[in-house]
C-alpha cells in the first residue's frame, strides 16, 4: 500500500471520477457516516458535515467545477431572498428573469455552446471552432433545482431559506448530485429541521434501495451493455435485424436500470441520513399508455417539466390544439435537456407527438365503454397497451442512444430489411448470460411491488451485524460480475 496512491485517491482524477459503484465510495460513505454520527445531535453540525462531504464529493466528481455549485447557491440564495422581500411586481419579475438567465446561461455555456456553434457552421458555412470545456457533472440537475426554487419563491408558494448554508446543503446534497432525482426545495428543506431519527423501516428501506440500485446498475445494466448492447449500437450494420432488435430491448433495460439504479442508491443513502426523497421511477415498462409511461419514468423530471414548462405555457387551459402544442414544446425541452444533439430533440419530439396522440386516443376510448366491457377484454386491452407503449418507447430509445441519425436509421434498416429471425436461437446461445440477466431484469420489472416491500421488511428485521454480512456477500457477488472477462461479440455467418 502506498501513501502516494492514497493521496491520489483523495484528489480529483479526471480519468476516474467518483461513482456510487466504485470501491472508493464505500470508504467515502463510511467516513461521512462516522462524522455525521459525531454531530448527529446538532442541526448546524449535520448541515456543516453534510455540506462539506457533498462539496468534497463534487470535487472528486469534477474537480474545480465544485465552484459552480457554490456560485449557483450564492446567486440563487441572494436573489430568492430579494424576490421574497420585494413588493413591486416589475422588480420581482426582473429579478426572476435575472436568475433564470444566469442559470440557463451557465447550463447553455457548458452544455450547448458547441451544439449551436455546429448549427451555425452547418447553416452559414461558418468556421467557428468549438470550445474546449468539460461538462460539469450534475449541472442539468442542480440548474433545474435552482430554477424551481426561485420560481416557487416568486410564485409565493414557499418562503426562501434564511440560512445560506441550508441552501448550499440542499443544492449540493451528494446523494442526488450526479444523476438526480431533481429534488424540490419545498420538500427537502423542512427535513433539515427534523432531528436525526431512524426507524428500523428507514434502515431496511435504505439498505434495500442501495442494494437494489447497485444490483440494477452493476449486475444488469453494466453487464448487458458491456457484453452485448454496446456492440450492436456501435456498428448495427454488422449485425442482423434480430440481433439489433434484441439490442434495443437490451438497451431499454440498460437505460432503465442505469438511471433508476442510480436514483435508488441516491434515495437509499438519503434515507439512511434521515431524508426522504420520493421515488423517481415506478416500473415504467408496465405502462399501458405513453401518458402513463411519463408518470412512471423519471418522475422528478416529468413533474418538473409539468410544473415549470407545461403549465406556464398554458397547459390544457387554452383549448385542445394549444394543449398538443404545449405537450410537444415541453417534450422538446425535455429531450434537449438530456443532451446537446438533434437526436435528443427528435426523441423528445416523438414523445411529445405520442403524448398528444395519446390524449386524442384516450378520448376516443372513453366514448366506447364496450371495449373493456368484460374482464377478458379489459385484460387484452391492457396487454396490448403495454406492448404497444413498450415498443414505442423502444423505438424512441434507438434515437436516444445512437450518436447520429444515420446510425439510428441503419439499425432500423437492419430490423426491417434484414431481420433473419431464424437466427434467434443462435444469438441466444451466443450470449447466454446476457439474455439470462436481461430476462431477469424484465421479470423483476413486472413483479408486483409488494415483493420489494417484503425484502425491505426482511432487512428491517436484521441485526446490524447480519445486515453487514448480507452486504459483504452482496458486494462479493458484484465483484464477481464486475470483473468478468468481456464477452466478445459474435459475428454470425448468416
Amino acid at each position, binding site marked *: *500500500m*502506498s501513501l*502516494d*496512491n*492514497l493521496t491520489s*485517491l483523495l484528489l480529483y482524477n479526471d480519468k476516474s471520477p467518483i461513482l456510487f459503484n466504485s*470501491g*472508493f465510495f*464505500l*470508504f467515502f*460513505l*463510511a467516513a461521512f*457516516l*462516522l462524522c*455525521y*454520527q459525531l454531530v*448527529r445531535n446538532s442541526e448546524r453540525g449535520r448541515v456543516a458535515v453534510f455540506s462539506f462531504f457533498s462539496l468534497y464529493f463534487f470535487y472528486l466528481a469534477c474537480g474545480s467545477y465544485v465552484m459552480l455549485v457554490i456560485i449557483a447557491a450564492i446567486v440563487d440564495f441572494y436573489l430568492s431572498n430579494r424576490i421574497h422581500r420585494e413588493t413591486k411586481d416589475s422588480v420581482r419579475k426582473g429579478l426572476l428573469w435575472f436568475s433564470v438567465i444566469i442559470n440557463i446561461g451557465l447550463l447553455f455555456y457548458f452544455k450547448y455552446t458547441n451544439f449551436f456553434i455546429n448549427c451555425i457552421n452547418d447553416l452559414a458555412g461558418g468556421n467557428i471552432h468549438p470550445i474546449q470545456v468539460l461538462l460539469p457533472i450534475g449541472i442539468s440537475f442542480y440548474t433545474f433545482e435552482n430554477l424551481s426554487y426561485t420560481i416557487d419563491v416568486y410564485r409565493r408558494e414557499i418562503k426562501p431559506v434564511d440560512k445560506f448554508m441550508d441552501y448550499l446543503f440542499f443544492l449540493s446534497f451528494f446523494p442526488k448530485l450526479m444523476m438526480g432525482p431533481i429534488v424540490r426545495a419545498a420538500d427537502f428543506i423542512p427535513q433539515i429541521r427534523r432531528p*436525526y*431519527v*431512524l*426507524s*428500523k423501516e*428507514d*434502515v431496511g428501506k*435504505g*439498505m434495500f434501495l442501495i442494494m437494489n440500485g447497485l444490483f440494477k446498475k452493476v449486475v444488469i445494466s453494466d453487464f448487458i451493455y458491456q457484453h452485448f448492447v*454496446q*456492440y450492436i449500437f*456501435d*456498428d448495427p*450494420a*454488422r449485425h442482423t435485424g434480430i440481433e439489433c432488435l434484441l439490442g434495443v430491448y437490451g438497451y431499454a433495460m440498460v437505460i432503465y436500470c442505469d438511471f433508476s439504479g442510480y436514483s435508488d442508491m441516491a434515495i437509499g443513502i438519503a434515507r*439512511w441520513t*434521515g431524508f426522504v426523497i420520493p421515488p423517481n421511477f415506478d416500473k415504467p415498462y408496465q405502462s399501458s399508455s405513453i401518458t402513463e409511461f411519463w408518470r412512471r419514468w423519471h418522475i422528478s423530471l416529468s413533474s418538473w417539466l409539468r410544473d415549470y414548462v407545461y403549465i406556464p405555457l398554458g397547459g390544457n387551459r387554452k383549448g385542445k390544439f394549444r394543449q398538443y402544442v404545449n405537450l410537444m414544446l415541453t417534450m422538446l425541452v425535455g429531450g434537449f435537456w438530456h443532451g446537446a444533439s438533434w437526436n435528443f430533440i427528435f426523441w423528445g419530439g416523438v414523445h411529445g407527438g405520442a403524448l398528444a396522440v395519446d390524449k386524442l386516443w384516450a378520448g376516443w376510448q372513453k366514448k366506447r365503454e364496450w371495449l373493456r366491457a368484460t374482464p377478458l377484454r379489459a385484460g387484452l386491452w391492457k396487454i396490448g397497451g403495454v406492448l404497444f407503449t413498450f415498443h414505442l418507447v423502444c423505438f424512441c430509445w434507438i434515437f436516444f442512444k445512437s450518436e447520429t441519425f444515420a446510425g439510428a436509421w*441503419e439499425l432500423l434498416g*437492419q430490423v426491417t*430489411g*434484414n431481420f433473419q429471425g431464424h437466427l434467434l436461437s443462435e444469438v441466444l446461445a451466443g450470449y447466454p448470460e446476457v439474455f439470462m440477466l436481461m430476462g431477469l431484469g424484465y421479470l423483476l420489472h413486472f413483479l408486483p411491488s409488494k415483493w420489494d416491500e417484503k425484502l425491505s421488511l426482511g432487512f428491517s*428485521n*436484521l*441485526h*446490524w*451485524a447480519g*445486515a*453487514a*454480512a448480507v*452486504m*459483504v456477500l452482496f*458486494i*462479493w457477488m458484484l*465483484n*464477481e460480475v464486475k*470483473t468478468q*472477462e*468481456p464477452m*466478445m*461479440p459474435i*459475428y454470425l*455467418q*448468416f
Partner: protein
Amino acid sequence: MSSGNKHPYPLLITMGAIVGLAAVSFLKPVVSAGNYTLRPLDIFADLRTPAPVTETVTDTALLAAADTARKADSLHRAPLPPRDYLTYPGILDYGYTTGPSGAGMHHFVEALRQLRTGSRKKVRIAYFGDSMIEGDLITQDLRDSLQAYFGGEGVGFVPATSVVSGFRTTITHSFSPNWTDYHFKNSPPAGVELGISGHAFMPAPESWVRFQPVKRQRLDEFGEVSLLYGKGAGQVKINDQPAELHGNGNLNAYSFLADSATRSLTFKFAGEQKVPLYGVCFESGNGIFLDNFSFRGISGIELGKLSSDMWKQVQSVRPYDLIVLHYGANVLFMPENTRFDWYERPMEKVVDSLRRYFPQSSFLIVGTADKSYRKNGKYVTAPGVKALLKVQHQFAEENGMAYWNLYSAMGGDGAMARWVEGEQALANKDYTHFNFRGASKVGALLYKAIMDEFRQEAM
C-alpha cells in the same frame, strides 16, 4: 431488530461491510462450485501500487532484412538496413530471397511501372480477408488512392448476394431473397464448386440481382462488366436483354461493355439450369483494379477448400498481379493463447499452394491488426497478437513473399485501445474491428506502404 432510534445502524452496517470485505481481501478464501471458482476480491486494490506488467516478448527481435541482405540478388536492390519485423511499419520484401522471380513485390511494382508508361493496360489485385474488410472497408480507400494515381475506375468484384450489401457504400447492390448461397461454412452439394470468394450462388426461378453505380468519383458509371459463373449452361437477362451462358471451365466470364449512361444493371436468371454464379466485376478499360474477397469469421485456412482447378482458371479468366492475404482477427479468438499450431500448418499449406498456382504474382501477407482485451479493468494488447505476427511473418519469409505488419503501422502496443478510446473513435468497442474512419486510415497506411515500395524500386 428492536424498535427505537436506529441512527447508528447505517454506520455500523457500512463499517461491518468494510471489515468483512477486508477479511475476504486478506484471507483470500477459495470458493468454488464444480469447476467454477470465484475471482479474488480486493477492496484495497486502489491503494496498492500495481506490480509492473512484465511483457513476455514472444520473440527476440528478428533482424529480417539482415537475412534478406545476405541472400540479396545483386541484380536487384541494395541490401536493406536491418529491420525488425515486429516494429517496422513498412513492407518487408522477402521476394529477393528466392531470386528475381520471387513472390515479393517485384512483379507487382514492375506491373505498376508498365501501367504508368502505357506498356500495359491493367493491373489487378485480389485482396482476401475476413470481416475486417467486409463491406469494402479498407479496400475501398486503398483502391481509390491507387486508381487516383495509376488510373482506372470501377469497384471490381461484387458477389451475387452479400450479408453486408446494405453496408457497402461503393456500389448499390440489391437482390431477390430466393438465392441459395453455398459457402465455406455450409456443405455445397457435389457438382457445385465454390468460387474464390468462398461462395457459389445458385439461382432459383426468377432470381435477380441489381447493381447501381454510386455518386462517387470513379464509381459513378459502369464500363467493362464481367459476370463470373461456373460450369453449366443457362440463360440470363441483362436489363431484359437475353444472354447465353456456356460454362466449360470451372470459372467463366460473360463480359460486355455497359453504356456509360446505364444507371442500373439487373441480371435475371431463369433458374431452370444449374449454373453456379459467383459475382459481377466492374472495371474500366485501363488502370488498376482491386477485388475485395471478404468472408466473415474465417482464419484463412478455408481457402484450402477451393479446388486447384478453380485457382488455375482464375489466372486465365481474371489474372492477378498481387494477392493480399489479410487475416488474423478470427485466429485470436482466445486473446491469451499464444500457440497457433492448429493454424500454422494448414495456413502454411494454403500459402504454399497459392504460391504454386500463381508463380508470377506478387504476394503480400498482412500481419494482424492489434487486438485488445480487458485485463484487470484495462484494455491491453492481447498476448496472442505478437505470437500470431511471428507466425504470419514466417509465412512470408519462408515463401519469399512480402509482409506488412498492420499492428506496427497502427502504432504498435496498445494501438487498438487508443483507436477505440481516442477523441474520434477509429475502431469499434469489440476492440477488433475498424469503423469507417479507422478503415480509411488503414487503407491510407497500406497505400503509403505500397507507394514507398513503388518509389523505392523506381529509384
